[in-house]
């Protein structure tokens, strides 16, 4: 209880207020609000096509909502702050598209970017994460297009984890994983009490690591929340 009170006192990590997302005539979210405190893990569950992915993409500035505000660690997201705020979030997209090249290069590439100059690629941590997520280390030398869907998903997770972000946005991040790999990923995030995690999924079993579950009604194929 005390720890909960302590957490309440902390600055919210993610605040979505009165968010409206509309694609043409279709209202995907109508004045949707949610707050995640630092270290909190929340699952937003709903059917496929309910707009869950769009919600996460709006937190990264990939979709600009028609109405409402998003704050990350108290900073209002806009066209100027987004470049700083993206450095605070790790994102795993549904069916990640990782581009071309070798897996190891893909994992190293973000460390050459200006925003990540204070970070260093950690080969030992990479190897350890591979083992933890049941990936052979030899996979690091494979070409990206040779990976299976499940391998891609785990490589995307490792890429995000290596960047040491305090907030993670997971979009159906375990959808292509077998039971063992999925458990390994969930165990990893469950053990990271320092991270704020917003998951969206149709898979309600992810609620095992969530402190809060928000079930989206079926509306969302075109109605209102």
């Amino acid at each position, binding site marked *: 209880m005390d720890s909960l009170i302590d957490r309440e006192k902390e600055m919210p990590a993610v605040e979505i207020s009165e968010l409206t997302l509309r694609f043409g005539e279709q209202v995907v979210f109508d004045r949707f609000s949610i707050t995640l405190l630092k270290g909190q893990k929340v699952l937003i569950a709903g059917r496929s096509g309910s707009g869950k992915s769009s919600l996460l*993409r709006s937190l990264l500035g990939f979709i600009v909502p028609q109405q409402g505000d998003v704050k990350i660690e108290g900073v209002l997201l806009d066209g100027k702050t987004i470049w700083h705020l993206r450095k605070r979030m790790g994102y795993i997209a549904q069916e990640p598209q990782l581009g071309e090249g070798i897996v190891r290069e893909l994992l190293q590439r973000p460390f050459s970017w200006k*925003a990540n100059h204070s970070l260093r690629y950690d080969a030992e941590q990479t190897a350890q994460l591979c083992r933890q997520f049941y990936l052979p280390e030899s996979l690091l030398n494979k070409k990206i297009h040779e990976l299976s869907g499940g391998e891609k998903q785990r490589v995307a997770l490792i890429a995000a984890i290596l960047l040491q972000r305090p907030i993670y946005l997971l979009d159906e991040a375990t959808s292509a994983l077998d039971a063992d790999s999925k458990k390994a990923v969930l165990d990893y995030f469950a053990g990271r009490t320092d991270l704020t995690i917003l998951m969206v999924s149709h898979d309600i079993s992810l609620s095992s690591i969530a402190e809060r579950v928000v079930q989206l009604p079926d509306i969302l194929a075109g109605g209102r929340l």
Partner: protein
Amino acid sequence: MNAAVDIHPLALLAGYVMLLIPLGIIYWYRVPMLGQTLMSVLRMTLQLIFVGLYLQVVFRLNHFGLNILWLAVMITVADLSILRGCQLRLGRIAGWIFLALLAGTAVPLLVFVGVILRRPEILDARFVIPIGGMILGNCLRADIVGIRTFYQSIRTGQKAYELSLSQGATVTEAVQPHLRETLYQSLTPTVAMMANVGIVALPGMMTGVILGGNDPLTAIGYQIAIMLSIFTGTSITVILAILFSARSAFSAYGILRPEIFK
């Protein structure tokens, strides 16, 4: 050697008579391009007559300002062709593409005429117009391929592009793989042309110099210089066209504006 043999207009009629062969083939096999072919032949004839008459005046006057004006007209037409050819709504950056074409044409043209040919009269009509035209024509083709490849590549690889942004990349950093692909696609034809020049066919400039009454070794010098100029010009114009157009093609959030696609 003698100067180029003149072609009498009536003798040229033999060329039009020869046209009956391809037209006959098109007609016999019912290829749906008879009207289009006739229209193209007509357009070619009228355009070249007009250009020939105009260039005669330009060459006779050989006035600095008129030569520059002719080059500006050629670049403007190329600019409009690029905007139409790359099937994007980039109208508001027409001025930037004009500058990219100008740089891609002017830099190798100045080196070709001023340094390689060592002509002090750099803007002389007989250098600026044919050499500038050859470089510009290739810049036009490269820009169309380059601009289209760049934006389509980001659109088809949208998730990979967004992944880079989400990992902290700036737009400049996130577009690097797309820029590499763009340069590869737009420069490959010139690289391949350089590798095969003289073997598959005698290239245009070399043919022109030989027909103009010069020996083949002189013609080779011109051909090498023009190939190097074209390659330099295309690489300059493509990279500038992309960098300039990107200024208005991405939102403040670094996302490619969907409205640029037709």
